[in-house]
């Protein structure tokens, strides 16, 4: 079986005049069945990597393979992507959004989405623009996690939400995660998610500076990932 994600010499430079590569000859292989934290300060290349995986950018050089395939229609079928920005059309109703996902993604599970929306008492008839920012983010996460995908790419899923919502989001991720899937989760709030990670990737200036399992870090360095992060990225 192919690894779920494989990057070979993956490089992205946004323009010929820019000083450095946003992503610099990145080599990375991720196996199935783990929750992976993608950590790094702003501008370290996390979002660039995520966009390349999702075919939202074309690499300057190198390749990115998802389940052995170049980004395209096939890979989009098996990746479920939560962007950092709100990506839902605000004039649509929640139920329209649910059928939109159902229409385009074969692996979308409507029952599951409906159940989760019910749990949160979100009225499916309400338009997205009438919902609060936090609720919109939850709807977005529910839609993403209602797909039976092979790879979930979650860009800052717990970014701007309050601690209670954060717990709900982590619960949702854990509940819907199946053992054969892989979750790639970018964040700068390491402490909150440390306990759910199998593996962490540290990025700095477009390069991978650490790729290690959480147990390894704790066992060998006797440190939490959070402490390790502070040490690696000390100013």
């Amino acid at each position: 079986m192919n690894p779920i994600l494989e990057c070979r010499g993956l490089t992205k430079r946004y323009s010929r005049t820019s000083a450095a590569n946003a992503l610099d000859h990145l080599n990375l292989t991720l196996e199935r069945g783990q929750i992976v934290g993608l950590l790094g300060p702003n501008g370290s290349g996390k979002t660039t990597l995520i966009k390349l995986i999702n075919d939202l950018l074309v690499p300057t050089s190198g390749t990115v393979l998802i389940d052995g395939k170049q980004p395209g229609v096939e890979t989009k079928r098996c990746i479920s992507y939560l962007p950092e920005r709100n990506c839902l059309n605000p004039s649509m109703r929640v139920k329209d959004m649910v059928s939109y996902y159902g229409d385009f993604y074969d692996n979308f599970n409507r029952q599951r989405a409906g159940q989760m929306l019910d749990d949160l008492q979100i009225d499916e008839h309400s338009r997205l623009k009438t919902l609060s920012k936090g609720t919109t983010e939850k709807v977005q996460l529910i839609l993403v996690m209602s797909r039976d995908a092979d790879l979930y790419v979650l860009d800052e899923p717990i970014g701007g939400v309050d601690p209670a919502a954060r717990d709900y989001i982590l619960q949702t991720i854990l509940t819907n995660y199946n053992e054969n899937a892989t979750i790639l989760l970018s964040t700068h709030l390491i402490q909150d998610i440390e306990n759910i990670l199998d593996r962490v990737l540290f990025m700095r200036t477009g390069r991978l500076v650490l790729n290690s399992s959480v147990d390894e870090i704790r066992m060998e360095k006797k440190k939490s990932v959070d402490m390790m992060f502070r040490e690696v990225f000390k100013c």
Partner: protein
Amino acid sequence: MLRKLIKYDLKALNPILIFVHAFLLLAALCIRIFISGRLFHEDSDFSDPYTAMAVGLLVVLFSLAVVLVLFSTELLIAVRFYKNLFSGEGYLTLTLPVTPGQHLLSRTISGTLWGTLDMFLCFFSVYLAFATPYVRETVGRELLQAWKELLLMSDSGLPSPAAAVCFYILFCITGVATTVLTIYASVAVGQVLFGHRIIGAIALFFVINTAFSILSFIALALTGGLNMFFTPATFNPAMHVKYSLVLTEWLSVATILVLYLLTYYMMKKKINLD
């Protein structure tokens, strides 16, 4: 997938466009019932300055409304394309399991569909507003006659009136498609200008339009189309109109192809969402 994309694109465009056109048709109906229906008949005295002024004002205002509707339709198609593909919504739209080609084709179809419908409805609204029986009898008959003479009956070279009508319909649709693709290409190329995307797209729209006009003129000159004006002895208006129409048609088709490929390339290789 293509059908689903078109379905959702129309779903997004329909409500507001239906509203705008319904409003125009309603306005046309009101004009017909309350103004033109009472003014335009055999007994009207158009030499009366008040009547003449009223009619003039009415025509100007209604033309303005029609132009506004035409413009807003184009604008709405542009906004939909930009928002759906290049704003935050693009993160979802562009990660659907659909090829860039299907995205572009679906939007070309839905945009052209509404553009054509828009043109038809605008014509119809003018007809509805002003074509009272009296106008139909007088002006309408003359117009129809002139048109027939010029393009159908005379030696314009078209095989039959039916073929001529088909050609005009095709001409209209390609015209609309050219505009729609000019919009799409402007937006798709404009999005690389980070921070100036909308201004960039508007500027590009005018650049492409101007380029198209210049190109038509050059093509007309090169193929000898202009010479006809300078040889009055053999100048045949029908022949000339037909000639430039066919030339424009070919040019439109070529432009559509170029703009389509350009937009496709931008969507395939140069996407860079904010």
